[in-house]
């Protein structure tokens, strides 16, 4: 309250006269307001404007400054390292450590700022580019452009029957159907295999069989099974 009172005394008075009184509590909806009292106006949501050319220039300059700061930090760091080698340790150790700490802190800050600047510059560049593209497109009279395109000639040059002939629709339909049917059949087979094994297990349990079943057929190879192949397939 004091904050409001200090900065906007007349505003404070206005709040106090409103139903509810306390400015921190949101005003009740318009329907609940007594007759004759005007409903509070909800403030419009203002979306921030997209960055423009000025922003881009400013942010680029900022990025340059950040880069220069970073570079100066690196140079100072290099100087400290040189000083450490040149000066006797008893004299230079303490002051150089202090300088080193400060330099590290400054470099960290500069790096963070630099990263932020890069992001902001990218954002501004992209916004400016978008504005330019939109502006250019708006300037173009599309109808006039379309009028100048020889669509009839383009369509006439396309050999539609040849394209249709190249697309083997029958093959596409056949392949997709075969795949679908094959997968369905496989799914049914797997289910039935499961039931087969389950029945066998139940029977084995009922008869308390301890010897396992002999499922494998010695000498049978699924991939190289000896079969009689029809003549036309040889």
């Amino acid at each position: 309250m004091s904050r409001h009172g200090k900065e906007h005394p007349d505003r404070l008075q206005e709040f106090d006269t409103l139903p509810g009184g306390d400015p921190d509590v949101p005003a009740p909806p318009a329907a609940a307001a007594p007759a004759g009292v005007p409903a509070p106006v909800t403030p419009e949501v203002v979306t921030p404007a997209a960055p423009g050319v000025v922003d881009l220039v400013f942010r680029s300059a900022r990025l340059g400054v950040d880069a220069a700061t970073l570079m100066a930090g690196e140079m100072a760091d290099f100087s400290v390292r040189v000083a450490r080698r040149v000066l006797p340790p008893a004299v230079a150790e303490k002051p150089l450590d202090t300088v080193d700490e400060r330099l590290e802190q400054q470099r960290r800050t500069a790096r963070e700022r630099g990263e932020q600047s890069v992001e902001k510059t990218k954002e501004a560049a992209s916004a400016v580019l978008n504005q330019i593209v939109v502006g250019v497109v708006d300037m173009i009279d599309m109808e006039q452009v379309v009028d100048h395109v020889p669509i009839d000639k383009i369509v006439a040059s396309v050999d539609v029957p040849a394209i249709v002939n190249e697309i083997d629709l029958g093959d596409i339909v056949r392949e997709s159907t075969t795949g679908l049917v094959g997968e369905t059949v496989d799914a049914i087979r797997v289910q039935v295999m499961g039931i087969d094994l389950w029945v066998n297990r139940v029977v084995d349990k009922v008869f308390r069989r301890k010897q396992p079943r002999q499922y494998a057929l010695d000498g049978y190879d699924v991939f190289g099974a000896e079969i009689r192949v029809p003549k036309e397939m040889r």
Partner: protein
Amino acid sequence: MSRLIRNDRARQLQGQRAGIVSRGLAFAADIGIAFVVYTVLVAGVSLLWDLLFSNKVEIPTPPGWASALMIFWVLVIYLALGWGSTGRTIGKQLLGLRVVRADARPLTPRQAFVRAFLCAIFYPGILWVPFDRRCRSLQDKALKTVVVYDWIPEAARPRRMAPAATPAGPPATTSGQQGA
């Protein structure tokens, strides 16, 4: 075009002895096909007869015993042709099964015919499958035959008589025209 057997369990079970449910369903499908073949046969023959020797067309309805007998023989011939050639009928192809001898070799035509006859005349023999350690039906025990899971289609097999008893190789395919 080839398609892999994606299910691991199914891939492991290829070449293993099949259970009663797969075999029963395959036989049910075969009986259905035998009925269709019989119907088409009767309708076709009578139509041809009427076209050649009669002035009116009608589909006859044979007496029950004659139909049963004809369906029986259609079934026997159909099963024998399937088992004697690729080792499977359409029903067995559908369920991914194959009939082979106990030594993993294909059935001879005589064995195929006898097995088909025995199966058609007394199919309940299949009920022995879950009780047998080697998953054999009564017909299998009598003729020393085995029914195995085998999803590999004929077109995907080597196009020559390959010696049996070679170890299983690359992942199985369920359809395709490539040489495996």
